[in-house]
């Protein structure tokens, strides 16, 4: 059939009217560099990366500084807050001008109550049968030795505020349940029932107080608050049931393409324009493809709860960016007037995919202080945020990738080590593996079940 001139030109117009080819990213990079200013469109993962680094620095600072600002005895006080029924109590030393104090000085230093003796103190004193130690006589305490709160009307040492004294004594009783006699502590009788409950902490407290007394420290040194400032000598097992954590992951990512349709020219390209056929004076020859895998990053927040001594569950929010490139090189031979020329046509596709994932993980591990192990397995629901690689026409090559799933499931497992350096704070590092459970592209031409191995670092806060 012979086409008319009009239809000849119209056909070319129509064919090229909506024709599109994707130029390589380097073209825009060249434009941007020639315009002379920095490209302000920074990749999303860089912005998220900066935020994650800032968060990690903040968390790291808190982890480093928190122990310095936390009174270690606070937890001790809480744990020992319930006084034993027969546990002797300590409130403070008597003064010589206090008859009550004199009466008590030969026995114990119990809190002053309305009847002059703390029933618990009496009971415990009787139960305490430890040896008494003679000590040199103490310098009489003077009121000018006392800080203001121990002097005057408000000072219970002068017997002015017995009610308050009793309350304060109760606090002290909770804090340091150790028996004392004047000047020297009375160590608990190892055979006594009550003494069996004494902890190394109590002994440490008593010894410290002894030193204080020998040096005739002012009475203020026995301020209840100062007594409770003694360093705990017993490591505590964290009893916190919940944790929240933040971490970052560096991934070795593979898109894991597989060819479903054997008629396509390669795993990635779904058709080669004109195939291997010659048309005109052009011949399309060999097609070489290469996958250039990219390293990727992820940032996550973790929220978990302990189910027992070793088992836990957690969920959270993870943002992951995955990148890779597919390079397709076609050999093009052009023959014109007995002159043959060969072109290498390079089509490079860049894929950047990002997800927000919600994990559900089961953990097993140890929860002891110091170094511990941890391992997990779980499922992730992945919501697509961005996908830059879609079906497209490149020079002589078609890529039919179908559509990217907006949501897919993946499975993951991890194993690693943690270090708990305070009841609340810990750090961890994990090796983890993640794999999609279904093809992320919906097409009958190829399959893609991305997987990656990652190395994570993070911090945990227990509460």
């Amino acid at each position, binding site marked *: *059939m*012979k*086409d008319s*001139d009009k239809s*000849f*030109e119209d*056909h*070319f*117009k129509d*064919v*090229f009217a*909506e*024709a*599109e*080819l*994707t*130029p*390589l990213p*380097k*073209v*825009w990079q*060249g*434009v*941007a560099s*020639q*315009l002379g*200013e*920095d*490209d*302000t*469109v920074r990749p*999303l993962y860089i912005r998220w990366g900066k935020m994650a680094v800032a968060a990690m620095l903040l968390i790291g600072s808190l982890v480093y500084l928190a122990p310095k600002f936390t009174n270690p005895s606070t937890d001790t006080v809480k744990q020992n807050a319930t006084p034993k029924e027969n546990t002797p109590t300590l409130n403070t030393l008597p003064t010589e001008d206090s008859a009550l104090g004199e009466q008590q000085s030969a026995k114990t230093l119990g809190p002053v109550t309305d009847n002059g003796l703390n029933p618990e103190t009496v009971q415990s004193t009787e139960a305490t049968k430890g040896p008494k130690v003679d000590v040199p006589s103490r310098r009489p305490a003077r009121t000018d030795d006392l800080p203001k709160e121990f002097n005057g009307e408000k000072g219970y040492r002068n017997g002015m505020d017995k009610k308050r004294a009793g309350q304060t004594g109760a606090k002290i009783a909770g804090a340091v349940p150790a028996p004392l006699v004047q000047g020297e502590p009375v160590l608990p009788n190892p055979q006594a029932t009550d003494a069996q409950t004494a902890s190394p902490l109590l002994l440490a407290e008593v010894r410290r107080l002894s030193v204080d007394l020998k040096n005739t420290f002012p009475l203020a040194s026995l301020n209840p608050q100062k007594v409770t400032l003694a360093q705990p000598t017993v490591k505590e097992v964290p009893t916190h049931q919940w944790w929240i954590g933040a971490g970052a992951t560096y991934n070795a990512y593979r898109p894991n393409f597989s060819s479903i349709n054997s008629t396509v020219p390669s795993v990635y390209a779904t058709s080669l*324009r*004109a195939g291997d*056929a*010659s*048309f*005109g*004076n*052009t011949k399309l020859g060999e097609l070489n493809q290469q996958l250039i895998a990219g390293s990727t990053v992820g940032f996550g927040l973790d929220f978990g709860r302990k189910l027992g001594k070793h088992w836990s569950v957690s969920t959270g929010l993870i943002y992951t960016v995955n990148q890779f490139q597919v390079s397709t090189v076609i050999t093009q031979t*052009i023959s*014109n007037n007995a002159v043959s020329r060969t*072109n290498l*046509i*390079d089509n490079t596709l860049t894929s950047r995919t990002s997800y*927000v994932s919600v994990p559900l993980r089961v953990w097993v591990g140890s929860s002891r202080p110091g170094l511990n192990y941890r391992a997990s397995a779980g499922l992730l629901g992945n*919501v*697509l*945020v*961005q996908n830059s690689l879609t079906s497209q*026409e490149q*020079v*002589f090559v078609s890529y039919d990738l179908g559509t990217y799933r*907006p949501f897919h499931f993946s499975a993951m497992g991890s194993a690693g080590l943690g270090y708990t350096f305070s009841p609340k704070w810990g750090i961890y590092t994990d090796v983890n593996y993640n794999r999609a459970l279904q093809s992320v592209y919906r097409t009958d031409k190829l399959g893609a079940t991305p997987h990656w191995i990652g190395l994570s670092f993070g911090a945990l806060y227990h509460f």
Partner: protein
Amino acid sequence: MQLFKQPTYNEDKLVALCTSGDRKAQRQLYERFSKKMFVVAMRYSKTTFEAEDILQEAFVKVFQNIAEFKAGSTLEYWVKRIVINTSLKQNRKFFDKMHMDDVSVMRDEPSEEFTFTAYNFQELLAFIQQLPAGYQAIFNLYAIEGFKHHEIAEMLSISEGTSKSQYARAKVLLQKMIAKDEDKVYERQR
């Protein structure tokens, strides 16, 4: 799904932002037109690399001169003209040789039956790229862009007759290429 998608500006807003040097807007304008303009550049060049150079140079001109774009006209057409002018400038040396051509040397080439409607744009693009540079430019300007011969003559600083003769030869060459390709396909199918 794009959770963090950049806002899509209308043409006037986009031009205003590009005029003020907003790089995000420039990127958006580039993304909007680069695919079509790449095909235009490919039609006027011999290789992909050459087309990429043309595209890059053209968009730099677009952003450097976007203040001169007049509201009310079509931005796509304005960008396309810059791409075409950039392409023609690259091939200027070939047009100088065309002054010797004249419409009197045109002869009616033997017409062959061919069916070019079976070819897609990439295959036709391959044929166009094989035309000699001067023929290639005039064929693009006349058959695809829709310029008149006197407009082409003005653009390329050649005579109107030269434009007509060059176009006629380009058309014959294309018909031959297509016919030859059809023969090969036919022989292969036998």
